[in-house]
């Protein structure tokens, strides 16, 4: 029982983290029609910035805040210097160019921070277990991730659906020329959206950092997961990304937690423990394949055109 609740919460936490990453990706994809493989690099940079700033300032929160700003700035610089010129080009060009950016970022990190990973230690007040149900404790930090991510999701929803900027963003997604003709600075808008996406990716990276180590290439595996999520959810749909992210997070976590035991019923111990992680990773791609076969536009296609 204890294990089930804990793994369920872990799944939720991982799902929400994936949502932060997928939300930025789907915004950029849905609005600028840009396939950004380098989104995972921004996630990695967020983690590296956080580890560096936290060590420098001695405060976890201050470090995180500075890192958030740094990723935002990095995203904006990246958009203005390179990605802006890719809007309207073939998707294949996006894939190739951002693939190049991944190479660049991985190598730059290796040059600056060295090949060994960094650690981002938690402050004491985030390491205590918190009672959530009678007799069941859960790490405060993971709980904090859930709260922060839910808060960000809510803010994002309100921001896109209820504010003037959000209205402009949605308008820009449905008809770029028209909104430009109405006197809105669409370039600035796109830069802001990209910066926002970068900051979300950075936030996801720095929140994941204390749980895993901060290392080169950390963004790549999770980026593919984020892509799976936005494809399942329907490209451009934040609601779809949210639901798909939770779904994928749950499958991944619960699969890893319970599949080895299930498999041990039919396979030998050693075979089960190697096959289980592979199988639970496969489950996600299987899910995506099924969704795409049944609904080629994803579960919640954004209403475009």
């Amino acid at each position: 029982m204890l294990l089930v609740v804990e793994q369920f919460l872990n799944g939720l936490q991982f799902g929400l983290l994936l949502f932060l990453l997928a939300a930025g990706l789907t915004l950029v994809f849905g609005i600028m029609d840009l396939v950004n493989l380098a989104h995972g690099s921004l996630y990695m940079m967020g983690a590296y910035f956080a580890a560096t700033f936290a060590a420098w300032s001695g405060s976890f929160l201050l470090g995180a805040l500075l890192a958030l700003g740094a990723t935002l700035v990095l995203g904006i610089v990246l958009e203005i210097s390179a990605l802006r010129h890719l809007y309207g080009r073939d998707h294949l060009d996006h894939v190739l160019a951002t693939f190049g950016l991944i190479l660049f970022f991985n190598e730059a990190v290796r040059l600056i921070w060295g090949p060994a990973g960094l650690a981002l230690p938690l402050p004491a007040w985030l390491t205590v277990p918190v009672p959530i149900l009678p007799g069941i404790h859960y790490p405060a930090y993971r709980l904090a991730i859930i709260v922060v991510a839910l808060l960000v999701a809510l803010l994002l929803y309100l921001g896109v659906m209820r504010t003037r900027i959000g209205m402009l963003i949605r308008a820009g997604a449905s008809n770029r020329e028209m909104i430009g003709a109405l006197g809105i600075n669409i370039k600035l808008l796109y830069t802001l959206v990209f910066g926002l996406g970068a900051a979300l990716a950075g936030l996801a990276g720095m929140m994941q950092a204390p749980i895993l180590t901060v290392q080169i290439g950390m963004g790549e595996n999770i980026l593919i997961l984020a892509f799976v999520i936005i494809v399942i959810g329907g490209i451009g749909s934040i609601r779809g990304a949210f639901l798909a992210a939770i779904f994928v997070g749950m499958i991944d976590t619960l699969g890893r937690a319970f599949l080895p035991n299930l498999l041990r019923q039919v396979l030998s111990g050693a075979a089960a423990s190697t096959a289980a992680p592979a199988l639970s990773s496969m489950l996600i791609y299987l899910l995506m394949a099924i969704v795409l076969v049944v609904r080629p536009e994803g579960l919640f296609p954004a209403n475009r055109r």
Partner: protein
Amino acid sequence: MKAFTVSKAVTALMLAGLLLLPLYSYLSGNIFIMTLFTRIVILALAAASLNLIMGFGGMMSFGHAVYLGIGGYAVGMLAQEGTGSGFIQFPVALAASAIYALVIGALSLRTRGVYFIMITLAFAQMAYYVASGLARYGGDDGLTVYKRSDFSGLINLSNRTQFYYLCLACLFAVIFLIWRIVNSRFGLVVQGLRSNEQRMQAIGFPAKRYQLVCFVISGTMCGLAGALLANNTDFVSPAMMYWTRSGDLMVMVILGGMGTLFGPVMGAVVYLLLEEFLSQITEYWALIMGPLLLLIVLFGRGGIMGLLGRLNRG
């Protein structure tokens, strides 16, 4: 059509270079260059097969390296189980790739655009995780192929020169095949589907069936590259089909020139030589390679072949 163009001349030079390479290696005593170029030729074969669906067919597969893995594992697993004959290993590698391509093609071709890119990627990742889970065949760590495919005296794959020429012959055969396909009625239909699927369907061509056949042919060709690659490195591992490898193949095709016959070969040669060259100058070669790719996308439309074509006009 002009009889002489810059791109034709450069292509001919490159092919002559590839043919004469063992002679150079023999004369200069540089053995490493043979190892390097065997790898280049094999990956050029894979890139050429990707070009068939991507350049001519308009199907942007982001999981093409999966066939490298399947072909490679077919050889590796058979060798592990004691079947060393190349006459069994190679047909099995091709058949396995073809069947896999048939299944994922039938499913993936229901989608288009970015969704197609992503679903092919997802299927490749699935295969990657399957391979990682094969405890009997090394799992994550991969599998050493102790004995190269045995063609019972016909050709010796352990002989560096013979193996190089085998790979080169396979590459030329595949390119010849692609040339025949592209100029056949079948190939024209596939290219028509790339330009306008609706119109082709309105004329009465069953679009999906043509695309699927093309997809399977391409996958089978790449499976051959996989079988050769396993023999070249004496090792197969899940990393052969990791998504960055698929990305590498895409880069080679685009760098060389999509939808041209020899573009992918050119792309593979330039990409891999550049990688080799930069990694000798500096440990941080990707720091240069990454932005270089970005610049190629931004300014070099049509890849190297496009560039050479413009040279000719200018």
